[in-house]
């Protein structure tokens, strides 16, 4: 299947690993991701004017019109902004986490398992809130880890806020909030949001922080992914 793809700014920059990971995982399953032509920044959370903010994503939807009916946006901020801008539900704006369902795993070629390894799946905020734009399956990461024999930890902090949004504004806020989460996590921290990755990574010391796509690639047989 061909999906419209909205990488957003971070995946073309600091979150290039997530971008490559997503593309690889989809390619292995026989799906193609085709970028929305000439997409622009979605504005993240930086604009206080709701109409101005929605305007960015409306422009992106215009650019997708006629090319795609389903749009995949991995960055939680981009995903939320696109979905909110699609007021008439003209498109299926989908987060990749909602595509890793039973059919996906049934078709997946497994190369490795996660036996003996501990993981803390960390969703953060925007994938789970507000309700209207939340992903459908809010236990997809736990299910994946358990399915392949890994141990799941840190249930109590999966939806807490890491303060990633404040990392370049009030760093001490991010430090405090990220440490609260890290203290209650065990093993490898698995995230999806690029900003969560940065917040966790900055304060995690020796602890490993990976994208969910790294986990998938490892299970698919890529040794170096974890």
């Amino acid at each position: 299947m061909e999906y419209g793809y909205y990488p957003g700014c971070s995946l073309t920059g600091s979150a290039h690993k997530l971008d490559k990971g997503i593309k690889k995982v989809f390619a292995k399953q026989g799906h193609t991701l085709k970028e929305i032509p000439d997409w622009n920044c979605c504005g993240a959370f930086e604009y206080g004017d709701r109409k101005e903010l929605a305007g960015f994503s409306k422009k992106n939807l215009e650019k997708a019109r006629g090319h795609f009916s389903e749009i995949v946006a991995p960055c939680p901020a981009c995903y939320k902004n696109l979905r909110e801008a699609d007021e008439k539900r003209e498109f299926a704006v989908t987060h990749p986490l909602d595509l890793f369902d039973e059919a996906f795993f049934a078709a997946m070629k497994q190369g490795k398992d996660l036996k003996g390894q501990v993981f803390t799946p960390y969703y953060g905020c925007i994938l789970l809130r507000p309700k209207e734009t939340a992903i459908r399956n809010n236990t997809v990461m736990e299910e994946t880890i358990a399915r392949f024999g890994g141990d799941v930890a840190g249930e109590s902090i999966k939806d807490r806020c890491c303060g990633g949004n404040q990392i370049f504004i009030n760093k001490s806020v991010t430090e405090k909030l990220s440490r609260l989460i890290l203290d209650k996590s065990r093993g490898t921290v698995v995230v999806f949001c690029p900003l969560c990755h940065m917040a966790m990574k900055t304060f995690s010391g020796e602890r490993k922080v990976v994208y969910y796509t790294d986990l998938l690639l490892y299970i698919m047989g890529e040794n170096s992914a974890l």
Partner: protein
Amino acid sequence: MPKTDRAIELTDYERQDFSVCLGCKICASVCTVNDLDLSTNPQEMLQKLFLGKDVAADDPLVRFCTGCYRCTGACPWEIRIPDVVRALRQVHATESPFEKAFKGSVAIWGRVYEPYVLMRAAPFLLKGGYIKHMMRWMEYMGIHLPHKVKRT
């Protein structure tokens, strides 16, 4: 027009909409800012807006709200408090140098070009002690040229 009214205009709300607030303070009980040894109560902020009173730029909620939507998720009316906070930040013009650089990049290229943002925010990053994290951030680095988005 008072600043609070201008802020409300930037949101999807009208002032009367806040009259539904029950004063239950569930938002305060889950607010992330309260994990920071600060005491804050979003309900009080909404009440001020409803009454047309000013909310100061240095109010802890305005400064430190992380936009986590925990309040919205727990509120019986799902009031989008962080949207209100962002509007207040805009009318108070208290954006950080990083946020200014972000918007600057979007204005030039239509996208966030991270090297530009880092350059423009460099004095702030130097002063703020960010350099010590650079080693941990190496995996985020990558050189690509800016791509200018056509204005359509």
